[in-house]
């Protein structure tokens, strides 16, 4: 178990590092690369939970397709370094209490979740996570949410095409 825990902390630490770097970097490409690091670490965490399919899809869809589009657009627009502006006074004044409140809320949620959890993670059962089981669930129990999601994506694609066409005219 200790090895698993060690890998978890390495991946979680890298993910947090990537997320912080995403905000702190001044160049959009570097931010995008940090985001890719976060995605890959998340995939590693899924793998650690035994959800192989989700891990692979995480890399293919988010690490591959989505982020390649991000990088492509940043490169195409040739976005340069962002300039640092002075903090707004309101932000510097409100940031400490707000951040504290948020941290407390998240910590409370995690504590509540730990208190209410009865057993191991469901992923540990193994059966639930195999690709076959996952697809059976997707196409039987969760078929309506699944189809609705694909419908939503279709609508989004149509919207993108309509917007692109309007610009041309």
């Amino acid at each position, binding site marked *: 178990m200790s090895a698993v825990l060690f890998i978890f902390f390495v991946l979680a630490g890298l993910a947090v590092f990537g997320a912080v770097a995403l905000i702190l970097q001044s160049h959009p490409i570097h931010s995008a690369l940090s985001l890719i690091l976060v995605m890959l670490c998340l995939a590693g965490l899924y793998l650690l939970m035994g959800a192989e399919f989700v891990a692979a899809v995480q890399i293919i869809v988010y690490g591959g397709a989505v982020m390649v589009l991000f*990088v492509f657009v940043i490169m195409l627009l040739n976005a340069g370094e962002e300039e640092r502006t002075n903090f707004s006074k309101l932000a510097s004044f409100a940031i400490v209490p707000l951040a504290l409140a948020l941290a407390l809320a998240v910590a409370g949620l995690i504590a509540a979740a730990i208190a209410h959890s009865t057993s191991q993670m469901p992923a540990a059962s193994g059966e639930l996570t195999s690709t076959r089981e996952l697809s059976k669930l997707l196409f039987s129990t969760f078929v309506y949410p699944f189809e609705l999601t694909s419908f939503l994506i279709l609508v989004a694609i149509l919207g993108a095409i309509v917007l692109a066409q309007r610009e041309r005219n």
Partner: protein
Amino acid sequence: MSTLAPYAFILVPLIKVALLVFIVLTADAYLTWLERKVIGHIQARWGPYRVGPHGLLQPLADGVKFILKEDPMPEGVDKKAYFFAPFLTLMLALTSLAVIPFGPDVTILGYKTNFGIADINISLLALFAITALSVYGIALAGWGSNSKYSLLGGLRSSAQMISYELSMTLSVVGVLLMAGTLSLKEIVEMQHYSSYGFLGWNIIGFTKDHFGFTQIIGCLCFFISAIAETNRVPFDLPEAESELVAGYHTEYASMKFAMFFIGEYTAMITVSSLSTILFFGGWLSPFPDSWTITQYLPSVILIPLGLWIIFDGIRYETIFGRIMLPGVGTVLTLIGAGLFLLPPWVNQTIQGPFWFFFKVFAALFFYIWMRATLPRFRYDQLMDFGWKLLLPVSIANVILTSAVLFWRTRG
């Protein structure tokens, strides 16, 4: 041996990784030789001929040159991206080989192991995941080099990879429907149909339980998209030398350029292995199992090849060639003869890797052949071809295959 047994689970993969990296890097080097030689002969030239007999030491000379060349860094590059890109390309290319099974499981000294590095049950998805990331190497190299040619190459590469990844992924769905698994090893085993040999392969689709459908359309779509994914002719727009100098690697020299180069050739080997596994029965022999005589085919090929190299070598112009070529020929002949004399299990063990190598070699030759034959696509043709032809055809293949399989299961 017994003291090492508890550590076998970590030692065996390490040995396998070292062996595979060595073999693949050598294969990459000689793939460049083969490519230059084949293209040369197709264009009625000799190809490399000066370094060693028949240019056989050319890869070695190239390697020395790569190491010794000056490695200048252009001004205004984004250092992180510029240095990271070649490493990423090579790393991902070599990693993707880890999930390829080169043969059936083998037992060496009582230790049963798979003929490959990692045998995971989502190996196909893992391979696609690694392929999906490999675009960053090229995109970052193009963007980080601070050069307009590199940037254009990187841009083209990202757009091309997004477009062709779709049809590549969709074209294997037909195989997955028939196999019902994402494990490459099981996909090969599914194609084994003892008395029909190659008819059981997915490209013919005459499987054991008559639950198959020919995947010839899927195979064509897969191979075309795979060529586009590896940025090879006729899809080599990212490095189109007549338009972009050398595209994304214009500003790279020395070992950093070599890393891109090795990465590209390794990707070729991976893709050829993958198409072999998915459509051409992987390590399976094309002959029925009852034709046991065909297991001497490696010897039947090796002995005449060795004899011919000896015959050719003793008439070679240089003295070095007259020593080296007969030497190589003798080794090949001895290996071929040894397979007759050694115990039969040796011959049976090498059957799988032999056929795998044979098929991968054929696929690689096809790659080179295409490079020597076809002109490069124009950018709009590339996009039209990917989105308006390849993608609909792969989707049609998915629908057709599922319809046939559905009909077969009912009837």
